[in-house]
């Protein structure tokens, strides 16, 4: 195929259609972007996958004269069949941004950063870590990592934190995007692991998207849906979202509930499914436990109740229930509209319940996709860098901890397992009260991405807290650090990562990192050597020295667990397509769908989690789980609706929800440095409905001040199809590209100035989509040099 650049994917992000029918193979469409080159000019192509969302689009990097010069989709890959989204096509340009960090930085007594050698910087980091261990023990040290490193790096960091230091305090920023996906799967199936597959889109006759703006978050997966919609016998879509998203526009039924009422809405859907007998009685009795509790609970949620709580017409919800209830191949997908909202896990679990009681699991087109936000979120979960133990091991099961201790050859008591691993919001609390005094942040930007930023900045600025930041750029967070370590990124290092449907991809090094920047793996290995971590026989705890040997070590750790990688090698992942785990002797080519034939990973001895109370988050004890689910069936867990904590009032009459645009990723550290993406969405905006704007007397383009009990942010108004009473702010915009640098100068720009410190008690995911807000106009829009008021007067 000729390597010519595809047309502008800013104006038309999903590109041209390649329609196909149910059960057909998704046609190939190869997308390419080469920066002013012809294909003949490219020196070589290097295999990788996208690191700017969780879709896992496979691609090749074009290398020209030692630099990245473009990308093309890999037509042979199961995930994207050659397609690329806007961030895939243009995002790589950030790699060669002139403001990449190239040398370690150390903060001096006068507050300035000074460049230092790696040896000086790492000696300081090691010295501070040792000092902390002596003074406060392992619980004085915390690690906060990301959703964008590679599997080998998370695994290594996990071994260092849990077995080397021996601390509970290791979490990923996946806590902000995917913790509820994991928690919901652990509640329903007692184990993490995506049940469904992207190929379920090829077969489904109904796709229900719950709080999932797939068109912008996983644009290539959305292309797959669009191609089905344009082909013969298209699926019907049900969309639950307070905004009129591109998904909502394609939906047969769009439900736009008030934010925070998801559990009530889902209970009504379940009520209708059960009342009408649209569930699979045989499946329920053969493969599940606790159905009766669900039946009793949802009895209290007739459609009229949803009309009242969620402000959704009862008739429309009946229609949605009819479509879902009569689907023959139902694919349900879930994302942040559920995960970052009130009762996050309880709501995500009710989506699982729909598929479970309808027996829609483990068959082509019948599945659940509890999606991820970040590209390598799946790996933090597998490798135990995100609040679990490595290999989906159960911290509350002593034999799992003993098994892990054997893999690592350490004493069992060295691995903290007396309580759940600490989540980031709790780590921040420990840092605030002063019991954590050493915090190592890798590849993430909490000074923009955590809730209530004024508080986060205050915590990170404390003198008593030693902060190490490892990143590509001098982010808002790096500006508050004591030591900054320059890291290599995608295209500059080798490793593997896994997308939201368990597809493992190899990402190879294409070019050298800039200056002295180093791969995150090399930085961790250096730290482990300097700390001289030893196993119980006095041998080095971390025995590997490069990505491939780290991968082999991880394989040994994953053996026999649900996320079994033992059948994979770098060689096997080279060329061809990515492969879905579990991949082992039994499944040498990987596994498309989990839970075929109603078999789960849920037996008490094998499961990853005994579950938690859906309202309080308190852990269920082993004996109780054994009594409830001795045979390891799917667990149907019911929950009542509980109103959100922050209610609207006369003073704060709107509900503020935050979210994403297709053109940016996370806090824009990469995407704002790719000109096409930055120009597509250069500045923060706020969305309101036409009705609300009119009632307030605002017009498109007015500069508004959005305030919550925390702080306020300025943004220009876009009138959109959002429901009345709700306003939307994208969360990507921080301060590094403003004059003030790490925080606001006067009014704020980052949506998280406004969000409240509150999280789902089960998944510990912050509730970004729930704040009471007030809005006033700061400055009228200027059209043709005049404001509307001036126009009206003349």
């Amino acid at each position: 195929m000729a390597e010519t650049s595809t047309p502008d994917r800013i104006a038309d992000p999903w590109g041209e259609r390649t329609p196909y029918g149910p059960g057909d193979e998704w046609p190939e469409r190869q997308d390419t972007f080469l920066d002013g080159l012809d294909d003949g000019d490219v020196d070589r192509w290097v295999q990788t996958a996208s690191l700017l969302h969780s879709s896992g689009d496979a691609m090749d990097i074009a290398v020209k004269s030692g630099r990245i010069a473009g990308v093309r989709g890999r037509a042979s890959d199961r995930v994207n069949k050659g397609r690329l989204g806007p961030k895939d096509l243009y995002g790589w340009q950030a790699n060669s941004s002139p403001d990449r960090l190239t040398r370690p930085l150390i903060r001096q007594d006068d507050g300035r950063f000074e460049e230092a050698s790696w040896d000086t910087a790492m000696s300081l980091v090691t010295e501070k870590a040792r000092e902390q261990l002596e003074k406060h023990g392992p619980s004085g040290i915390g690690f906060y990592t990301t959703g964008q490193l590679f599997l080998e790096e998370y695994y290594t960091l996990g071994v260092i934190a849990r077995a080397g230091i021996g601390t509970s305090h290791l979490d990923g920023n996946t806590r902000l995007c995917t913790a509820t996906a994991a928690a919901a799967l652990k509640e329903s199936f007692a184990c993490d692991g995506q049940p469904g597959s992207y190929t379920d889109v090829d077969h489904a006759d109904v796709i229900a998207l719950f709080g999932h703006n797939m068109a912008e978050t996983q644009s290539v997966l959305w292309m797959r849906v669009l191609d089905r919609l344009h082909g013969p016998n298209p699926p019907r879509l049900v969309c639950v979202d307070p905004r009129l998203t591109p998904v909502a526009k394609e939906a047969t039924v769009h439900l736009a509930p008030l934010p925070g009422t998801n559990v009530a809405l889902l209970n009504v859907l379940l009520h209708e499914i059960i009342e009408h007998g649209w569930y699979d009685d045989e499946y329920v009795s053969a493969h599940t436990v606790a159905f009766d509790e669900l039946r009793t609970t949802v009895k209290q949620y007739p459609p009229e109740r949803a009309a009242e709580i969620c402000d959704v017409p009862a008739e429309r919800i009946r229609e949605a229930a009819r479509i879902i209830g009569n689907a023959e191949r139902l694919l349900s997908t879930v994302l942040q509209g559920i995960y970052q909202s009130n009762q996050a896990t309880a709501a995500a679990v009710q989506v699982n319940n729909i598929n479970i009681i309808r027996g829609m699991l483990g068959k082509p087109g019948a599945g659940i996709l509890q999606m991820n936000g970040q590209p390598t979120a799946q790996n933090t979960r597998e490798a135990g860098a995100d609040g679990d133990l490595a290999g989906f091991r159960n911290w509350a099961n002593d034999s799992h901890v003993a098994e892990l201790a054997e893999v690592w050859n350490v004493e069992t008591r060295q691995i903290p397992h007396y309580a759940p691993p600490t989540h980031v919001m709790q780590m921040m609390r420990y840092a605030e009260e002063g019991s954590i005094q050493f915090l190592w942040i890798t590849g993430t930007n909490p000074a923009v991405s955590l809730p209530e930023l004024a508080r986060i900045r205050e915590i990170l600025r404390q003198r008593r807290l030693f902060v190490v930041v490892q990143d590509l750029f001098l982010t808002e967070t790096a500006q508050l650090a004591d030591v900054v370590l320059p890291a290599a990124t995608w295209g500059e290092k080798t490793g593997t990562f896994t997308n939201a449907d368990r597809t493992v991809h190899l990402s190879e090094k294409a070019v050298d990192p800039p200056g002295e920047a180093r791969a995150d793996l090399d930085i961790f290995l250096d730290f482990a050597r300097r700390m001289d971590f030893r196993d119980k026989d006095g041998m080095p705890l971390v025995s590997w020295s490069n990505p491939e040997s780290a991968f082999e070590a991880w394989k040994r750790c994953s053996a026999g667990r649900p996320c079994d990688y033992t059948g994979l090698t770098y060689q096997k992942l080279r060329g061809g397509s990515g492969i879905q785990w579990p991949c082992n002797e039994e499944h040498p080519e990987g596994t498309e769908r989990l839970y075929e034939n109603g078999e789960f990973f849920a037996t008490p001895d094998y499961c990853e989690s005994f579950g938690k109370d859906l309202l309080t988050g308190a852990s269920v004890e082993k004996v109780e789980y054994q009594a409830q689910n001795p045979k390891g069936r799917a667990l149907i867990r019911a929950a009542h609706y509980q109103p959100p904590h922050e209610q609207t009032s006369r003073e704060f009459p709107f509900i503020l929800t935050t979210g994403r645009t297709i053109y940016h990723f996370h806090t824009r550290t990469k995407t704002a440095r790719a000109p096409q993406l930055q120009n597509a969405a250069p500045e923060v905006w706020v969305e309101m409905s036409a009705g609300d704007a009119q009632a307030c007397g605002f017009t498109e383009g007015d500069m508004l001040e959005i305030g919550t009990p925390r702080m306020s942010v300025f943004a220009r108004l876009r009138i959109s199809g959002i429901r009345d009473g709700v306003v939307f702010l994208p969360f990507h915009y921080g301060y590094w590209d403003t004059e003030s640098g790490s925080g606001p100068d006067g009014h704020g720009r980052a949506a998280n100035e406004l969000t409240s410190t509150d999280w789902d008690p089960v998944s510990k995911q912050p509730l970004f989509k729930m704040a009471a807000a007030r809005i006033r106009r700061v400055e009228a829009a200027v059209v043709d040099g005049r404001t509307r008021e001036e126009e009206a007067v003349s």
Partner: protein
Amino acid sequence: MNKIHMLLRVLHHAERIAARKLLVIGERHKSDHEVYHVTRDMAGWSHRHIRLLAEQGDRLGINLRDTTGRSRPLRVVRERTAELLGHRPESGLLLLRDLRKLHLDLVGLSVDWEILGQTAQGAKDDELLALTQKCHPDVLRQARWANNMIKVVSPQEMAS
């Protein structure tokens, strides 16, 4: 019958204390956000129990109406103090002490409900039995939450 009246009064009183303690502990530890929010959610359960107990009181001719009212003028002071002292390491120890006391209170309350459930069966009073079946699981969940938080918080506060 007098014994059942006495038992209902004891439960009503204990639920009021539990509701109040949940709120006060939340306010006193407002900087521990999960404690603050979950205690308030759970206080809502206790208020429902108080209401349901009062309804049973009406049926049995016992006056269990809330006479003290709900205004708690010190709330703002407690919350502000919590925010001001939230950066001090001792705040974790105070939280642990409060959770310990709360857990013991809730376990006691759970035993009282156990007694009511048994009494209701002995007296063949279906309404009291239904009330127990509705409320007792909530109290067990409250107690388990307090115990769980103690497990999470104590290693950090005591061993660091």
